[in-house]
């Protein structure tokens, strides 16, 4: 009986999280266009609906009704499954992310996390890394040089940033002694002064940089940089298959924002007078805004610069950080 309830609860949570995150990912595209436009003294989408709000629906209809083209020389099964891997792994990563403090509805306590596994952080990072198979397989199977270059760059990026994000997160893990994101959140109970960012500022910066690389956002958007490789791995994709890549990318953005907020910025604990859930929403929105802001302001770097940055600068820094943390803890 209890197991049935658990299964039903988990399924309901999964459906809610999937639909909300997918909707937020769609909405983030609209926000991105608006914010970028405002920063460039433009208006952005204005014609569909009030202030262009229904542009979202128009884009969705366009994506769903577009012809689905599979190139003649593409390897068909891989070409078809690659975007599914990209989107699915992004949503799988979402499963171990807690969003809000637990709350009670009709006397039934709800934990807003699909599954609180004790290696939550590892699971999220692993699932997000699997997401790189999407671009890689897409690039290899498209029979297109731009796609191939994009796929190669995706692997370069994976090899570079994954080390940094893993090592930079190691220092907080050593302090907290747990891989569960809920434990990390509980570690920072008691106001802004207890946030981990004050104890681990270097790890915070390193993890933020690695997060930008993981989501292919602007300083590291070399996987699909238009001026160099057209659209990278997504060059040959059209319609909803392309849309799946896009949704996966934005879901990853949301996941990274939530992770940074939980690990370093106090999570969903109450902030001054702001209740925890709203504080969490504010933090995540701030991080999404930061992603867009950086995209409006900064140029992107070359692949060799990315590797140089990750291997020669960020990795030694994160190792030093781990070392210092260890010495302090001992």
């Amino acid at each position: 009986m209890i197991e049935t309830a658990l299964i039903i609860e988990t399924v309901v949570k999964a459906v809610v999280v999937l639909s909300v995150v997918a909707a937020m990912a769609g909405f983030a595209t609209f926000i991105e266009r608006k914010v970028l436009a405002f920063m460039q003294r433009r208006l952005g989408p204005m014609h569909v609906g009030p202030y262009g709000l229904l542009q979202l629906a128009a884009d969705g209809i366009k994506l769903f009704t577009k012809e689905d083209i599979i190139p003649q020389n593409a390897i068909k099964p891989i070409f078809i499954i690659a975007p599914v891997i990209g989107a699915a792994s992004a949503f799988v990563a979402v499963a171990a992310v807690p969003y809000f403090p637990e709350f009670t509805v009709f006397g039934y306590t709800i934990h807003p996390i699909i599954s609180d596994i004790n290696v939550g952080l590892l699971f999220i990072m692993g699932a997000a890394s699997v997401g790189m198979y999407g671009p890689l397989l897409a690039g290899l199977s498209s029979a297109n040089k731009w796609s191939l270059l994009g796929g190669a760059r995706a692997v370069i990026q994976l090899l570079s940033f994954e080390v940094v994000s893993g090592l930079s997160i190691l220092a907080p893990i050593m302090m907290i002694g747990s891989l569960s994101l809920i434990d990390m959140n509980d570690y920072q109970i008691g106001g802004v002064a207890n946030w981990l960012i004050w104890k681990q500022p270097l790890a915070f910066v390193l993890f933020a940089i690695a997060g930008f690389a993981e989501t292919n956002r602007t300083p590291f958007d070399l996987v699909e940089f238009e001026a160099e490789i057209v659209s990278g791995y997504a060059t040959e994709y059209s319609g909803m298959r392309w849309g799946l890549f896009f949704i996966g990318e934005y879901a990853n953005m949301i996941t990274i924002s939530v992770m940074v907020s939980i690990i370093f910025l106090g999570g969903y604990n109450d902030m001054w007078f702001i209740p925890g859930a709203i504080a969490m929403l504010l933090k995540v929105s701030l991080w999404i805004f930061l992603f867009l802001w950086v995209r409006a302001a900064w140029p992107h770097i070359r692949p060799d610069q990315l590797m140089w940055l990750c291997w020669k600068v960020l990795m030694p820094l994160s190792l030093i950080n781990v070392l210092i943390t260890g010495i302090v803890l001992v």
Partner: protein
Amino acid sequence: MELRGFKNRNATPGYIYFEGEKESQNSWERFKRFSARAVKGELFVGLWIVLREMIKFNIHTVQYPLQKLQMFPRYRAIHKLLRLFESGHERCIGCGLCEKICIANCIKIDTKVDENSRKLVTEYSINFGRCIFCGYCAEVCPELAIVHGDDYEHASEQRAHFGLREDMLTPIDEFKAKKQKEFPGFGALSKDADKFVKKTPLAY
């Protein structure tokens, strides 16, 4: 300024020659260069600038079908043929200068001598498929008859639209409603042109 000032070709004193960045010798210097480049605040200056523009919200977009730009007087769009303000006759005297000067060879003008032995323009057309909107015709016209308008929306179904005399000539009802404006742009007289008129010397 004297002429001698212009003839001095030796521009060196005012210039500072940049020798290029110094090649770094050892790894310590390379490290210093790296940290100087990496810790520069330029990235944050960029962030601040875009945020400032967003907060100022000084939007430059023209929402085109709803808002339209007022073209400045010297803008060279589709031509117009004007009428005389006094009589309402068309100004063109059929001199053919515009046809002669047109470097794209797109103006076609045909004239005949009518029963009062006055020159009459029978055909006047511009091939807008060839016209490069250089403005020579408006500049050369002695009567300010052919001028450039400011109507920049010239999409049409036919290439020949806009190019015939009845398209370009001010319609007579519009003229009667006093809607024809004197052309202020390319080839027009300046506002203070009267000051420069001199009496023809009749000494001979």
